[in-house]
């Protein structure tokens, strides 16, 4: 407990980083820098198809290549009950495909060899007999009644629907819309993106078959969660598993999930009694590991004629890929509701979300701690901007009019001060869409930089003078 004379150090003070000394000397210890005695190298064969039945896999030519120690297939993993693993969203995900492949880049087989070069060579010698099926690449198509079922592995599954979720007061929201003077709506799509840390994912698995003790060095942001999943997959007690996260070359959410490569490398180490290193390349990282966003969003705002907001309705269609693997299933949707309804003094709001399987990589990670904050901010601010255009008023004024007031009960600080600061900048102007004159891209970017402010902190940040997650991009006609 600080006293009156004891300043709190930390906030507002620069702190010398202890890790810089090794990084600037090239003496960091990233996972690919780890070399263990007797270590083998693993490479993964991935599906060239988004959706295809596997009729057979012939690994004999790969197995015969000098330097190859083992070829691991889904069939082999299934013998050890390891062909599937749980996801963080209570679904299952194929470790190595057995029945069919469900996205391009899905893990089909793995080669363990004395060198990384030989392991990659051997991938080209594995013959897989695929039978192509219709790929489903949008959630809209996925939910059509005649769409082929992606998750045929699930008993009794007859469609590609995953979940329906809702929050808010549906009846009050419907009433607000029935009584509204003006309803503004927006359909938008926040595309899939990838966190793409500069260091790709990978691990060195070191299992001692005699003791059953597993040590896995891994570029992981969530070593504890991963230990739990590993314990579930392997049927081992957690104390038998040690996950070591060495220096990590960026993560941004991409290094939260458990990826099949980790499981296969660990299983291979157990079966072979030698450490196994698996480091994916950039292409593998981009096509198969945790993505973010991929929301098709519909928003509606109910307003009075004077611009007062009276209700908000949002419906989302989430493209979850082939396996539902949102890194934190509850927080994402709840976070979205909190953000879309969190800045403006809305008497009523209702949000629904539907998830669908598609033939894309699984994932659903935060990407820089956006627990659906980015999607929600984008939707609500685009909606408010559109409302201003349709009402013919200054978007900043419309925002200030509707921000939760200082005395409001739902937030401790109103975001209005941020907008006020932005709009009192010397260069700030607002022109109606019709009179807006096109300006060059460069000056537009400069201007947008000056006149926008975005926070992404917590909802209630009592000490922060910059209010959380309010975007006030001014100057119209730049959508």
């Amino acid at each position, binding site marked *: 407990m600080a*006293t009156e004379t004891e300043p709190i150090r930390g906030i507002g*003070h620069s702190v010398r980083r202890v890790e810089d000394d090794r990084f*600037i000397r*090239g003496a960091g210890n990233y996972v*690919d820098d780890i070399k263990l005695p007797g270590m083998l190298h693993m490479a993964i064969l991935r599906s060239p198809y988004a959706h295809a039945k596997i009729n057979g896999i012939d690994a004999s030519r790969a197995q015969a290549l000098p330097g190859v120690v083992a070829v691991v297939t889904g069939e082999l993993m299934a013998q050890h009950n390891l062909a599937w693993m749980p996801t963080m969203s209570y679904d299952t995900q194929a470790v190595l495909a057995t029945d069919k492949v469900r996205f391009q880049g899905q893990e089909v087989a793995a080669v363990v060899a004395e060198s990384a070069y030989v392991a990659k060579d051997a991938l080209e010698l594995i013959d897989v007999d695929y039978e192509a099926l219709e790929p489903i690449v949008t959630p809209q198509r996925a939910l059509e009644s005649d769409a082929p079922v992606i998750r045929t592995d699930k008993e009794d599954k007859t469609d590609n629907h995953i979940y329906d979720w809702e929050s808010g007061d549906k009846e009050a929201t419907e009433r607000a819309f029935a009584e509204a003077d003006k309803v503004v709506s927006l359909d938008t799509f926040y595309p899939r993106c990838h966190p793409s*840390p500069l260091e790709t994912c990978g691990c060195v698995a070191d299992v001692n078959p005699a003791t059953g003790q597993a040590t896995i060095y891994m570029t992981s942001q969530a070593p504890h969660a991963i230990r739990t999943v590993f314990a579930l997959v392997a049927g081992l007690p957690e104390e038998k598993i040690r996950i070591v996260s060495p*220096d990590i070359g960026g993560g941004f959410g991409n290094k939260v999930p458990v990826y099949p490569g980790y499981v296969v490398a660990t299983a291979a180490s157990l079966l072979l009694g030698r450490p196994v290193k698996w480091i994916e390349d950039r292409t593998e990282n981009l096509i198969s590991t945790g993505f973010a966003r991929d929301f098709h969003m519909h928003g509606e705002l109910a307003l009075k004629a004077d611009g007062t907001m009276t209700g908000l309705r949002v419906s989302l269609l989430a493209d979850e890929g082939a396996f539902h693997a949102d890194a934190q299933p509850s927080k994402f949707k709840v976070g979205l509701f909190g953000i879309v309804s969190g800045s403006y003094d809305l008497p009523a709001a209702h949000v629904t979300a539907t998830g669908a399987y598609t033939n894309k990589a699984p994932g659903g990670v935060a990407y820089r701690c956006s627990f659906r904050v980015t999607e929600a901010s984008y939707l609500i601010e685009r909606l408010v901007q559109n409302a201003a255009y349709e009402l013919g008023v200054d978007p900043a004024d419309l925002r200030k009019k509707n921000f939760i007031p200082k005395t409001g009960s739902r937030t401790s600080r109103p975001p209005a001060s941020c907008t006020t600061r932005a709009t009192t900048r010397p260069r700030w102007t607002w022109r109606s869409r019709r009179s807006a004159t096109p300006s060059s891209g460069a000056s537009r970017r400069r201007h947008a930089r000056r006149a926008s402010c975005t926070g992404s902190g917590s909802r209630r940040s009592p000490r922060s003078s910059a209010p959380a997650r309010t975007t006030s991009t001014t100057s119209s006609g730049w959508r």
Partner: protein
Amino acid sequence: MEITVTVNGVERTADVEPRMLLVHLLREELGLTGTHIGCDTSGCGACTVLLDGTPVKSCTMFGVQADGRSLTTVEGLASGAELHPVQAAFKEEHGLQCGFCTPGMMLVGAALLEDNPMPTEDDVRVAISGNICRCTGYMNIVKAIQAAARARAGTAEPLVAEPAAPEPVTA
């Protein structure tokens, strides 16, 4: 085949497959893991090393192509305990976060300062345009390279400025 390269001033000999990439020669054969692999397609610059003083991407060059030539990696930037001005500046200006792009960034910066001892911000940005950082953004990397230029020229204000103490926050 056997090759001889001078790495950080030391002559090294290695017996490598002709197809072995330079980055693997450095990391796997010579044990210099400060050179990183980010994309294996020349896109990210994490594998940048200096070949006879010029930055090259070691993931798209064969080790055998370096035969008889001189290489500088991040491990060779400092002189013993004494940091290269670029290294010191990256630390002081917070030019790094995860450290993965840092060796490549620093080597490009060091090579730039050999050619252009007092680069403008634009000069620095052009020089590092083949290097990607995913953590910090580029502001502090540019600042660090310019700070290193001033330090080398002896015109620097002290690199480390103690931040002004803010108003104490009391409970």
